């Protein structure tokens, strides 16, 4: 456990070094947030029928999505891991006395956390001082904030379990671009990053609820905004836990199978 922890800490510290990149990221994300909000503002203004998510709740969700983007985007990839697989350095990793799945898992969590810590606070802070229709406000109530904290932690564990599968798929395909691109695009869509889940047509929403993706970036944010009730929130925590268990098990299984017949590339 200590080995995992120190690896995790190293990653966080390493990520915190890239401050300029973080400032650029903050600007970009902030701009993106404003843009999405304006488009939705125009949509909401042109229709009088009540929607399954109010405009104000949607603004909260968009700001949270933008500030925690690094935590939850699927195409945030660690080229170091990919290179290890494709150029054969993986052999060194295999010599180490700890479990590789756990090592990588800790590494990836650390990387995502360090990126998010640098970026989320400035965005949230600025967004909290914007004029009214764009403002980021406090959570709906205390309980939903606690639920938000719990679900966002579990969501991080879940997204890393999903992205581990992408890394493991490289053992089989040897080229990360193809699989990464397809999973990332579909995953982003199904987690409500392109169009918010409550605004999808009901058939599509049913599919989305069956997939693990929405439990990463849709669930915690809508809990914060007060768009999901207490009962559904508690149930969803259970679903999150089940998904984490399934995906981690699947990842370990596939990794073990890949190692049985691994061909070390290069020399």
């Amino acid at each position, binding site marked *: 456990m200590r080995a995992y922890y120190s690896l995790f800490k190293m990653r966080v510290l390493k990520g915190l070094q890239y401050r300029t990149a973080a400032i*650029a990221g903050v*600007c970009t994300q902030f701009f993106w947030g404003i843009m999405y909000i304006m*488009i939705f503002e*125009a949509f909401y203004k042109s229709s009088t029928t009540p929607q399954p998510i109010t405009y104000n709740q949607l603004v909260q969700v968009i700001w949270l999505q933008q500030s925690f983007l690094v935590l939850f985007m699927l195409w945030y990839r660690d080229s170091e891991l990919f290179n290890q697989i494709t150029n054969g350095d993986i052999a060194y990793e295999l010599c180490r006395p700890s479990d590789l799945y756990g090592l990588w898992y800790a590494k990836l969590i650390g990387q995502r956390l360090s990126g998010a810590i640098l970026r989320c606070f400035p965005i949230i802070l600025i967004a909290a001082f914007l004029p009214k229709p764009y403002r980021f406000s406090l959570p709906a109530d205390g309980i939903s904030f606690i639920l938000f904290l719990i679900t966002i932690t579990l969501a991080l564990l879940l997204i890393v379990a999903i992205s581990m599968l992408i890394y493991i798929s490289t053992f089989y395909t040897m*080229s990360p671009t193809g699989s990464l691109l397809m999973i990332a695009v579909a995953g982003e869509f199904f987690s409500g990053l392109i169009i918010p889940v409550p605004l999808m047509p009901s058939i599509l929403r049913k599919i989305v609820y069956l997939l693990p993706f929405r439990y990463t970036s849709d669930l915690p944010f809508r809990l914060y905004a007060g768009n999901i009730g207490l009962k559904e929130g508690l149930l969803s925590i259970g679903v999150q836990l089940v998904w984490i268990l399934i995906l981690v098990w699947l990842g370990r299984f596939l990794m073990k199978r890949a190692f049985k017949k691994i061909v070390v590339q290069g020399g």
Partner: protein
Amino acid sequence: MKLYLRYVSVLLKSQMQYRTSFILVTVGQFFIPFFMFISVLLLFQRFSTIAGWTLYEVALCYAVINISSSLSECFARGFDTFSMLIVRGEFDRILVRPRTTLLQIFGTKFEFSRIGRLSQGFIALIFSLMYLDVSWDLYRVLTLLLMILSGTFIFTGLYILGATLCFWTVEGLEVVNILTDGGRNFAQYPLSIYQEWVKKFFTYVIPFASVNYLPLQYLLNKANGNLLAHMLAPILGILFIIPCILIWNFGVKHYKSTGS
């Protein structure tokens, strides 16, 4: 011009060496914006109009912007990755050759895989043309072509501006993407849906209004006042490239080699 065609044919041959990878990237380039378009469709299913524009009208705007941005990504990709040339000191080589720097940078890269994105734009265009209730005469077709051309010039100008910044910063800046990618995403919807200050910015600073608003009004019979002005507005967008080139030339004069 002949030299440029020669550049392009060499690049085509080199990209075709990795055929599988090329096909994969092209397909991916098709699907990323395709999900974007689906989301526009889904939003319209829920809201039916946006600030007075219908789905098919927005689709036309979306198509024009996507076609022109992918065209300019094809041609001006060299400017997008320009910081690499500076970092490696390769720009020195370009300076000593007896041709203009602009032509040579245009010739360094040509992204054929953007055909994926381009075809996505054309699908959106066909989709909107099928349902739009507009009688297409010669003037309208000409205006449409002008819009695409003008959009391509604006995006290319933005890429040149972004590359010019590298003369001072050496590193490429992610912030430039706000103007190129962000501009594309903003301009996918007609400009009139946005707040006043956004409209002003995209009219007077970066002239997207001359692509996705004024001529669009003319195409869809929404224009009032001088029709000719609406029709010829895209030409103003094409002129945007002139200050960009001037700034580029100023940047070239400022250039200090990184050595190595």
